[in-house]
Every structure is written in C-alpha cells, then in structure tokens.
C-alpha cells in the first residue's frame, strides 16, 4: 500500500437523490467491473444473490398521494466502520486513503463483519462462483475472483483508483478531480453519483457534501460514512 506523503486522498462519494432515477445502471456496471458471482433462482431464493450496490426503494404516503424514493446503497466506507473491529484476522481494515478494504486471502469467513454492518452491504461466498462457459471470457482481469468462504463488498473500484494514481505518478502530475470514477459513477446516465477526494475542498464531491441537502445514512450510529446523500429538493 502506498503510504508516501504524496498520497493525501480521502475518497468519498455523493449521490444526488434529485437526479437519481432508480434505473440500476450502477448495479449492472458493478457486476461487469467487479466479477460479481452469478446467482441462480435457487441461490437467490436463499438470500445469496450478490449486489455490491443496490437501489433501495421506499414507498412514502398512501395512494393516491404516494411517492417512491430510490436510494442506491453501497458500502459507505465508514471512518468508524463497525465491520472493522470485529474481524479477528484484520481482513477488513481502513487503508491510508480512507477506503474500507477487504483482504480476501486473510478472510477466514467468520461473517462477524456482515453481522455488524448496519447497511447490509457485505456478502459471503457460500460456494465457489460458477460462470457457464464462455461467460467467463468477460471477467475483468484487474479484479480477483472470490472463492467459497470469503466475504466481499464494494471496494470503490480500488483497481480504477490504483490505475489512475499510477498513471498520474508516471506522468508526474497530481490526479485531477473526476479522473477516478468507479464503474457505478461512470455509468450513471443522470449523473447522480459523484466520486472524488474529500481532502480537496475544491473537489466536486466536497462541495456537494457541504450542500444543505446533504445527509448521511444512519449517521446517528456514529459510523461516519463517506457516502453523502443529497435529498430531493421537494
């Protein structure tokens, strides 16, 4: 892990509920980018389908004055992450850039972390994943496949962050705001999701996080999430 002084990033995300249409492009993009295990009807019925990002929908009010609220929920990369202190083998910890990372080959599968996560965004691999050939030709070589017994979750597309940082370093320049985009942010048609450096007060995500509409999910638990939700304007 790069712990040099040059690395001052603290990655975070803002999601504008006023723009979000609930179209789930983010969900499909995440599957394509991160080699998520494929479910089938049987495993899904047992609650084993994996979506690192999901779009929760909440119905508010009664017919005919009823509205729906769509809310993309992914790992909140909490500063005080409840999943971290319960891991007996340090498989989940905070990296220097503020990401809550999961080290797959340390994980022994206690599932304590999933049990302690208030956002339900951690997923356990009960079996080795299977892709009927040739679906496996699509696998992203930048992301490892997780086998049975390992916990997995959103990484903020750390492979994209690393790639962008490496390229910037090779070109001896700082990373520009918006240069790193996780797959979900990249695909969002309504541009509801913004990713960037919370340490940079001028970054778009920092400015959105300061907006009057900004809230965080289950903030009262003291988890200090790094995903900011901008409430609908009406």
């Amino acid at each position: 892990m790069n712990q040099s002084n040059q690395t001052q990033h603290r990655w975070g995300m803002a999601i504008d509920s006023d723009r979000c249409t609930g179209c789930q492009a983010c969900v499909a993009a995440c599957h394509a980018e991160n080699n998520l295990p494929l479910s089938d009807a049987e495993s899904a019925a047992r609650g084993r389908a994996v979506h690192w990002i999901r779009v929760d929908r909440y119905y508010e009010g009664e017919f005919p004055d009823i509205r729906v609220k769509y809310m993309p929920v992914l790992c909140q990369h909490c500063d005080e992450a409840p999943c971290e202190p319960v891991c007996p083998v340090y498989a989940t910890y905070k990296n220097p850039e503020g990401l809550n990372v999961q080290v797959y080959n340390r994980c022994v599968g206690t599932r304590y972390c999933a049990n302690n996560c208030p956002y339900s965004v951690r997923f356990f691999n009960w079996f080795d994943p299977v892709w009927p050939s040739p679906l496996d030709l699509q696998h992203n070589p930048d992301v490892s496949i997780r086998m049975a017994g390992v916990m997995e979750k959103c990484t903020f597309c750390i492979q994209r962050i690393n790639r962008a940082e490496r390229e910037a370093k090779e070109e001896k320049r700082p990373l520009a705001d918006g240069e790193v985009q996780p797959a979900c942010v990249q695909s969002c048609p309504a541009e509801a999701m913004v990713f960037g450096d919370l340490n940079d007060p001028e970054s778009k995500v920092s400015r959105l996080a300061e907006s009057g509409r900004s809230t965080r999910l289950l903030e009262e638990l003291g988890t200090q999430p790094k995903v900011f939700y901008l409430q609908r304007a009406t």
Partner: protein
Amino acid sequence: MDRRDFFKIVSTASAGVATSACGKKSDALIPLLVPDHEIVPGEEQWHPSVCSECGGGCGVIARVMEGQRTIERSGEKFRERIACVKKIEGNPLDPVSGGRLCARGHAALQSLYNPDRVREPMRRTAPRGKAGFTPEPWDSAVAAVAEKLARARSSDPAKILFLTRPQASTRTLTIQRFLESLGAPPALSCSVAGLAVERKAADLVFGWRGLPRYDLGQARYALGVGADFLGGWASPVYYARQFGQFRQGRPGIRGKLIQAESRMSLTAGSADEWLPLRPGSEPHLLIAIARLLLDEKLARNAQQLPAGVAESILAANLADLIRISGIEERRLRRVARELGESESPIVIAGASIVHTNSLQSLVAAHYLNLLLGNVGRSGGVLAPQQAAAIDPVNANVLEALKRAQILLLDSENPVYSLPSASGVMEVLGGLEMIVSFGVFVDDSVAYADTILPDHHTLEFGTAVVPPVAPGIAINVATPLVQPLYNTRPIGQTLGDIARKMNVPFEPIGARDLIEPQLAPGETWDDVARQGGLWRDGEATEPASKPLGEKLEWSDPVFAGAPEQFPLQFQPYPSLQFGDGRGANLPWMQELPDPASSSMWGLPVEIDPQTAARLNVNTGDWVRVESAQGSLEALAYVHPAALPGVASMGIGEGHAHYGRFASGRGANPLSILAPVWENSTNTLAFGATRVRITRLGRRPGELIQFSPRDREQGPWGYR
C-alpha cells in the same frame, strides 16, 4: 473514461501512432479488428461500437483485453488465447449516450458470451415449436433456403415476410434492399417497444418522419403522460441524461416533473408528483388540460392551433374528461395552471402501454405543446433530423403473417410478442418455410426450419441511426473481436442466398452509409475511429403549419365483460428485459425489479384493496384469467397500484430462450385478447380485462432482494 480521455485516444489513433498496445492508455486504441496475436496480456484497448439491446442505438466503447478459451480439436483440448470484450461503457463522443449506459447496455456482454448462442447453421429435426435442430453445413443450408425462396418469388413474392428488430441501421437497409430485389414487401417488426403510434402521430400533426425529440434538459416544467421515458421508452439513456440536467444541471434552476401514468413506473417514481391515471384515459387528461389552458387564457400560442382543433377542444365536456381520467379536479386545475404559467413548459406523451386510443393521446399532446408555444423551440418539442435509415414498422403484423408463405426472422419473436389467441402459433406452424438469422433460439425460432446464425453485433461492423438524437447522428461499430463461432453476418448470408437465386444484390455496409455524408477533409477512418458521425442540428419549427382539422377522442376499448373480468390488465415493457429480449441475460434476471425488488421472475402487481378482497398477500400464487387464456404468477401487493388495475412486467415466460430464461415465469402477453390500436394495428396490450383468483402458497417463491423485512420487520436477508 471521460470525454477528454477519449478525445485524447481518438486523436492519437488518428495520427497513426497506435500500432500496438504499449504502455499508456492513450496509445492503446487500435482502430479496427484486433488480431488475437496482437493482444498484450494486461493491456486494454478501447473500441467504439453500438448497443443493440434496445432501439435507442447508443454509441458505446468496449474494453478489449486478452482472454483464454478452451477448444477441442480431434478429441484433444487446447487453450487458445483470444481477444475478449471485458466491459462496455457509453461512447463519450456520442451525443445520445454521452459516455453513459443503462443496465441493459452493460448486459450486452452476456449476449456476446452467452452459453446458449447458436454456434453453426442448423436444420430442424423435431416438430415445429419443439426446438429440435441438427447442424448443417452452410452451403447446403443456404442452398435449401435459396431454392424455396426462388420458388416463392416466382409464384408470388408478396408472400415473403421479413420480421426484424426495431432499430434503424445498415442491417435494416440491407434487408430492405434484399426484399426489394425479390419484389417482396418491406420488413416489419412485432416488438411491443416499436413506437409505431408515436411515429404515426408525429407524421399526422407535424408531417415529421421519425420520433420527436423532447428537449427536457432545457425545460422548466414537464408533464409526462403515458411515456416511461426514464424506464425504457424511446431512448432511456438520452432522456435520463436530460432528466439529470433538468433537475440539477442548471445553477438556480430546478425543473419540476409531473407524471400522469396508469402505473408507478420508474418515471412516475422519479417525478415530483404522480397523477394516477385510469388506463387508456391519456387523451381525456390531455384534452382536459388543453381546455383548461384555453379557458384560463394560459394558451400563449392559441392562434397557431388549427381552428377545427380549437373548436373540438372547446366543445369537450370538461367534467366528463376529468371524471374519466380519475384525477382529482383540483389537482388537474393546479397542474394546468402551473404548466401554462411556466416559463418553459413541455408535455412528453408516449404509449409505453398501448391502448386502442393511443394515437389520439399523442395527437392531443402535440396540439397541447403547440398551445404552449414550445414546438421547435429550445426546451420544447423538436423535429427529428433527416434520418439515414428508418425503423421497420410494427403494423398489421398478424395479417402479414397470415398472408405469408415464407417467414424470415431476424431476432423478432412473434410467438412471444403476440397473444396466443391471435393464432400466431398455428400460423407459424402452417408456413411453408421459416428461416432464422438470429443468434439465439427463442420461442419463434423453435418453429424455424433453418437457422443461419448471424455474428453478434460486437463481432461485425454496422452503423445505427439513433431515433432520438440532437442533430444528425449515425453511430458506427467496427468489428472488435474475432467471431467466436461458425456464424456469418446477415448481409453475407443474404448475398449468398441472392447469388444462388441469380438475383442482383449487394449488402449495405457502414461505409456505404457514412461516405455520402462526409464533409470535405473528413474520412471514413476518422468516423470509424471515433465511433460515429455527428452533426449539430438546428432547431426547426414545423415546415408548414400543423396539420389536422379536428381533434378526436374516444374511450379505450377493453376486451372482456367487466362483470366476469373485473380488473384491467396492463403488461408493460420491463426495465430489465424490455420487450422480452433481455430475459436470457443472467445479470438482468438477477437485477432487482424496481417496483417489487423481485429477481429471477416478475410478479403480477395488485393494489392493496383488491388484494385484501381476494385474500392475496405478496408471495402468493394467483391465477390471472382473461377470456382468452390464463397464467399463473406470484403476486406482489403494490402500495402504488391503481385500484382495479393489475400490471405485470413483460420479459419472463419464454418456452424457449436458453438456460436462463426458458420455462421461467409467465408471459403476460400470452393471455391478451387480440385487440389492436385503431390507426396502426399494432397490438393494444393494455386493452384486456382479467380476473384474479388466489391459489395460495405453492413451491416456488417470490425472490426479493430488498424484501419487506428490510423495511418493516427484523432485517437480515442474507
């Protein structure tokens, strides 16, 4: 990848720098097909292509990297290194996608690498409809087809019918030319997402050929009526981008969206206010609003309205219209006033669910926009640009099928898309010959005598004309990777057939379409490298004054006696599967449904009152019965469903469509009455009444990702 990066890549590639993949991303774009031996492990290359999952025609870029596949030769297994597509993103240069992509676009990868693709030409060995096939060499398969086609052509070429997917492209032009050389009638489409009514209305009122473009991003107040434009209607990525701009893309300005629809669609869910409209009452609502605008002197452009139309609106009985629409009068008056007073109002009408009177609703919406003075203006309704190719129409398909002797199928699925009661299966069973060019065996291909499989879109070159685009747009795909199987592009196959028949025919390639449009100094290579040809369009007002002498409206017709079949039934194109063709993609099967959160199946949505009366809970099995047939499905008690209206997403219920879709769930279209939209004769799939009975708990459950327990009870879905 953002626009700046992609520009960088395109410009380096154009300068001829890119010869092999080495080092930086900006050197890594190779313009055309990547030979497998040139792939460097770990190095990515980005190529432009076009998405063909729906009719929207988004320009995309594909990430190509090395992969390995196992092949068998003379009993031995080998590992072969090939170039593979790893991910698809929107092409940042394309004005339609703008670098963004929807869920179905991402899943196009799973149709390329689908384990159930047809891998070689096949001949039927089982009875029609049973999908039994055996491999057949290309030569003899083509010869057999050519011989029968030649015979049909000499007796009556009008008996040759071609069904193709609703996307305007070099493919449709090639098919058109082939049919012309045979003297056969033009190709048709039978998809429920064909937008035939929208096209007809634009032609009738403004004389426009193609779909109008709604400039939502510049509007201040939008009223959507019957068009689920964020959920899949017309061009979902384009309109979602516009919506983002409309809501939060302009400093100090936030657009307000009111959506009138007969179900809580994705668009209705994202709107500021949803007006729960009775099914088929879209014309009534629109004419009521036009009347209110005229009454309250808020119709700023009333003088442009044809006199007869204005008279029809003023003659309408407002109380009746409001009563039929089912919307509270107070609410409707407020919406009409807000619309009339807005600086930049727009009405976006469509027929996401087609009714017998859908044309009237679209025509009324065009006149309403005219009253609001936004036609041809920024933030209003804009004319389609002159298109280089036109989509096949969805009109009179059943009649055409009944007349036909020979059916040529290109990824269209009439057995799935038309109700069983229309007799479509019997018609297909009785045809002299059915040939499929599609890459999958679906419900209709199961009836085919011969399959002459096409390459996948990502494996060959094409040019697609997006139906909704600012200015002139032609998105171009060059072949990205070597074809995986023993398949041939449809143009080549049609050429081979024509040669055997001694008919002069040349397929139309992307280059043929692009070259006449090139500006001086521009080359085909430039266009192929950047993935399309785009020109700014000018906002144009309708050339002549709007057509039409009067405005008509009628109540929608519903098949089935209300006493026996008390519920209105509306199948709707689903977010995941569209018109049903996305059902064989596992990512789409496991994508939670936006309404019910169901995966690997789609439930029938029932309102809480009806559910209580029927003693039905979410997760119960129910029988949905029309006068024409019945299906069994799981129920979802939808808190926002209209009382007395049952809805069901289209997509599941395929008899044949590969391992992920076959035999899963039920097809709501199958039980419909064969009722047709009055002007186009496209299927009115919202025009059937049903009754629902409870079957109770049975094996097979509603699989939800965010089930009720997440929101209401003890959590822990895992």
